[in-house]
Every structure is written in C-alpha cells, then in structure tokens.
C-alpha cells in the first residue's frame, strides 16, 4: 500500500490584514475562487435517522445547511477534483474566525464516492489537516498541513497517490495566493 502524502507549509507575510486570509481558510469560498480544484463545498444539514448524519443512500447528495462565517464541529461536503477524478468527500470541520487568528481544522468522516469513468464507492481513507493565519506582531504567520491517502479508483490508486505529492503542495500555494492576490471571479 502506498504511504499517505503528508506535507507542511509555512509562510509569513507583512503589510497585510488577517481578514485578507478569510477566503483562504473558509472552505465555502473555494469553489468560487478555484473551480479547477473544487466543484462544490457546503455545510451539511445532518440527516435524521442515521448516526453519521449522512443519507443512507451515499450516492444521494447530503442536504445543504445555511452558510456561516465560522463554526465548530460541522460536517462539510466537498466535491474535490484530484487528477481529473471528482471525490465527493465529507469532512468534520471547525473554522475559527477571531480578531487574531483564522484557522480551519478538518478530518475526514467519509468519502462518499469517486467519480471517474464510473462511480466508485469510497475513494479516500485518510484526509486530515489544518490551516491557519495568525497575527504575530507586524506580520501574519501562515501554517498549513495536510495528510491524504486514496483508495479508489483501485486500478489507478497508485497513480492518484503519487499525484498527491503534487496536489498537496499545490493546495498550500493556492491558500497562500488566495490571501495575497486579487481573485478573479
């Protein structure tokens, strides 16, 4: 079995406001700023009748809940594009948005399926990480870490796990650019 891809990125910036990084670490913004990395993200309204809060039919989309500027322990749906495959993934997330810190922590609950030339059940068995921007005197310190491992589509899972060593550093750069530059919508 291939090892998970695990990376940490750090950066510090000056002459910026913490609020410049709100879009970087708010997952609800990602499909708008990077439709080439995410198709959809939204907070999930827990389904009644299942312990996980997910619909029993995993191919059915989880129900969308209202958007929030910050939240503790909420399930988030993401449609993440990875090597041309769409992973419909559910994460437990906490987003802090305070005067001195913006931080996002996430851990996978379940990957619903992977959509390639057909749909495969599951697809990711490890997806955990955090990202933060913190005021540190006159500068803002940014830290991002992510560990991910893919299991589907099985015939190409080796290749997808290799691509993780490309995509994880790319996602760190995306979050950094999101704060540094004007985003074209």
């Amino acid at each position, binding site marked *: 079995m291939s090892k998970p891809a695990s990376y940490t990125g750090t*950066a510090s910036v000056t002459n910026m406001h913490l609020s410049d990084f709100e879009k970087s670490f708010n997952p609800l913004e990602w499909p708008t700023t990077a439709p080439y990395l995410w198709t959809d993200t939204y907070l999930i309204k827990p389904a009644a009748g299942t312990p996980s809060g997910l619909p029993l039919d995993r191919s059915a989309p989880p129900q*969308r809940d209202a958007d929030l500027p910050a939240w503790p322990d909420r399930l988030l749906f993401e449609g993440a594009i990875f090597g041309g495959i769409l992973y419909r993934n559910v994460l437990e997330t906490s987003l802090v948005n305070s005067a001195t810190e913006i931080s996002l922590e996430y851990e996978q609950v379940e990957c619903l399926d992977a959509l390639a030339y057909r749909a495969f059940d599951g697809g990711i068995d490890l997806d955990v990480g955090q990202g933060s921007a913190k005021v540190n005197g006159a500068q803002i310190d940014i830290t991002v870490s992510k560990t991910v491992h893919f299991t589907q589509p099985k015939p190409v899972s080796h290749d997808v796990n*290799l691509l993780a060593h490309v995509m994880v550093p790319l996602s760190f750069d995306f979050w950094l650019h999101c704060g540094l530059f004007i985003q074209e919508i």
Partner: protein
Amino acid sequence: MSEQPGRDVGGPGQTGGGAEKPPGRPGDGTRLPTEQAKEWHRALLSVYYYGRQNQGTLGRHAPPMGVRSLAYAIDVLARAPVGPVRLALADLCRTRAPQPTSRTLKLAMSTLATTYQKHLRRLIPDLQGTRLDLPTAFEDIFKERGSLDPEAAYARAIGVMLQHEQSRIPANQRPALQTYSVSSS
C-alpha cells in the same frame, strides 16, 4: 447507486466553451467539473509535477496518469484565468532555481509571464497605458550567476507579482512574502 442529475460522468453538457456552466445543480453535491476546469487542473498539476518529477517519492516512479508535457500545459494555461497562471508561473520560478539556464523553463516562463501581463492590464485599470515588461521582470530573478534556493526564487516571483499588482502602494507598505517553506512531514 441511484441515478441522479449530474452523475453521468463525461456525458453531454461538458464540452468546452467560454461561458461553460458546471453541469449539475450548484450547492447540492451533484455538480461535476467542467471540461475547462479539468483542463486547467491537469495543466497546473503537470507544471507542479514537472518541478518535482525527480524528487522523493515521485522520482522513484513513472509519471502518473493525467500528467501532460510541460509544453502542452503551458499552452492550456496561456488561456486560463489569472489564478492558475500565477500559481504556475511562481512554481516554474521555483523549478528553475537550481537550473537557471534551462531553455525549456525560460520559454515556459516567458509565455506565462506574457499571459499574466495581459491579465494585469485587464484587471488593474491603473496599469493601462503604462509600460510593462513582465517577461523581463521574471527573467531578472535569474540574472545573477549561479543557482538560487528554490524557495527564495518562489518568494521573489511572488514579490514581482505583488510589486505590479499593488503598484499604487509605496514599496515599504506593500504586502510582502517574508518567509516561505513547504516540506514533506
């Protein structure tokens, strides 16, 4: 799996085009990536792969599926929005740091710097009518003799971008990337 709108992977409605809309319903977990988004994704991934193909885990394996040639990726990105162009251009600077005389990388950077310059003229009205030479500005990063540290080259590329995008702000008050590092953990 039950049949749902937007789950017909690779089906009709995913052809390219300037005003392409993502198939599926937005915000309900059925949206699929557009062909354009997939192309930009593959192109970005190929640029990032090019810079890491001989390192760590990637250096021990054949290129994974979905990776295209650098030349093809640059052709695609030359028609992409500013976000992926910035990401690719900065990453090419990092890749070129240990091999500053690489003709392949010099050409790729020149093409993307020209594309980036067109985006800036469109996005920043203040720059219209001013003389810009972004290909030379990025080329100047490698003017000094010898190789550069890749992360220092990346930070300098970001510096060139911020200098042009925030040209109204005095240099000592302009956002700046002070430190930058990404490592496997």
